[in-house]
């Protein structure tokens, strides 16, 4: 299979993470919204975690793809 799974996974987590981070940032200080989760802005923090995970997947995925294309015999 020529599709490196880390690429779609990376995109998905980066996009979801960005959405959450943005939401968390714009709602920071909203005690009503975050009262249920012990006053922690979970959207912001977990969004950042997901962005980091997503981006590292993307880097690894695209690097593997590039290495494969450099190999003799073309991409596999």
């Amino acid at each position, binding site marked *: *299979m*020529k*599709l490196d*799974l880390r690429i*779609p*996974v990376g*995109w*998905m*987590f980066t*996009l*979801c993470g960005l*959405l*959450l981070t943005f*939401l*968390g940032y714009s709602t920071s200080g909203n005690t009503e*919204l*975050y009262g*249920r*989760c*012990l006053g*922690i802005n*979970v*959207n912001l923090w*977990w*969004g950042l975690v*997901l962005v980091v*995970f997503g981006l590292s997947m993307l880097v690894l995925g695209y690097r593997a793809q590039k290495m494969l294309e450099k190999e003799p015999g073309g991409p596999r």
Partner: protein
Amino acid sequence: MLNLTLVDWLILLIYCFVAVGIGFALKPHMKTSSDFLLAGRALPAWICGLAFVAVNVGAPEVIGMGASGAKYGLEAAHIYGIGAIPAMIFLGLFMMPYYYGSKARSIPEFVGLRFDEKTRALNACLFAAMTVFSAGISLYAVARLIEGLHIFDALFYARGWPLGWIFGFSVVLAAALVMAYILLGGLAGAMYNQVVQFLLLVASLLPLVLLGLKGAGGWNGLRTSVAAVDPSLMHEWKGVMHAGTNPMGIDIIGIGMGLGFVLGAGYWCADFRVMQSAMAAKDMGSARRAPLIAAIPRMFFPFLLILPGLLAITLPTPHTTTVVREQNGIIYHETNVASKEAEAGKGLVPAKMDAVSGQVMLDAGGRPQLDYDMATPKLLLHYFPTGLLGLGITALLASFMGGMAGNVTAFNTVFTCDLYQAHIHKGASDGHYLAVGRWATVGCILLSVAAAFAAVQFNSILDTLQLAFALVNAPLLATVLLGMFWKRATGHGAFAGLIAGTIAALLHHGLTLPIAAHPGIHGGWIAIVHAYPSDMTQNLFTAICAFSANFIVTVVVSLCTKARVETEVLGLARVRAHIVWWKRPETLAVAILLAAVALNIFFY
């Protein structure tokens, strides 16, 4: 009740887009029936390993383990520890060389190569029926979850559609998404999606458990609050020596024989739904490493799957409360209305409601029947704010679809290779079988939609699935093990054993009943000879009966019939590859075993 905002919907949409997108990206590679049914046997070990564990982290696991956590406590972790880990190691070390090396495309085909065509056909039929049933249960679970979380309620109100249609609407919607990515990407599409679903699940259950533990005051806080509900729930092993002193009501023989051997090995070593992922590996080394890689996340899963259930029963039960406060001379009455099912429940676990009468359902003892399956979803609603809630719901829905997809891809392979090609239409072109594989996918999904509507009768999803499993896979395990490790086993023996095992399972189920259940679908439909303390115990012993009956009958009949010539019996040669010691599957296996023992000591 549930207020999803734009961000929640966007996250759900991103996931659907990725799921179908993977299908489209793989579509150009689907040229032969092998590409479609076996993923071309070209996948790396890590994808196979993650898909191997993810295929079973569908509805039965996420909801069922949460439910078991709330119902039985940490003892539910046995399924992980004693059942799964040794079985996966055994599979990787000893069984995979035969499965993968025989070049069989499915387990029934392996049975056919080792024994004969009639055993293969019997196994293929039983297995196909089980996959359709399980796919139906997964669909039912998705729809129940959507209904229980009131995801589409606002949409249905706005359109003026009756709310009773949500169940059917959700079943069809989930079935359509799974069908799309399987038809486009085949087994590879399903496996890629299972990895995505697995990662999503970790990404949403991890913050849930962390928040829950923080809310409960850490591990010790949880311990104290669980002790207030039922102290036996916090121990994996205490009280196992006697059936009366542990929450599941199983003694050590039941746990050891049932979970450790028959259920664990039956699932992880002889179930084609999980095996198909490992068999799609690109070479023997990857195929053997896949179950070992899968064992690593598997060890840490009790933490993510069972704890939400435990956390849910320790939180206070919602009650209708009225708070009176005065602001600027005006008196406000704030009423927080809890629904009838929530008030009758235990912790966050609601009671079951009769859809017809609108009353709380009672068990034979007159207590409200608890809807344990809602434990994890309720905890999600309790802790997650909008945003993260979207991610959590997406992960739950996605993992259900993954479990269903595993059943569908197993069905289409078994149907195409073991029933259609072997018995209905031999020697057709590969393109023909590719088309049959696609049509089998459609057929399986349509049947499972029907099964989803029939599944409304059952109480706990995991218990139901284990019943189907005890009927089909527990006897098969004896057949496969004898086939691999006893060359004297014959085709007639295996055939007779398989029939005897299935009948023994049916008889056992028909003659016994869990306490506090009504006779019928839960057992006791012939007569009640013995009562078990729980569904789970009953299923364990059903599995043990099936396995033992098959084992004994196969051995006896084999000894009475003519053996095959030794050279005909396949896969007996074991080739040892020359790899550096730390890369060998054996090294990985020992490390995993040590870690599993350590975890069990910690949770004693």
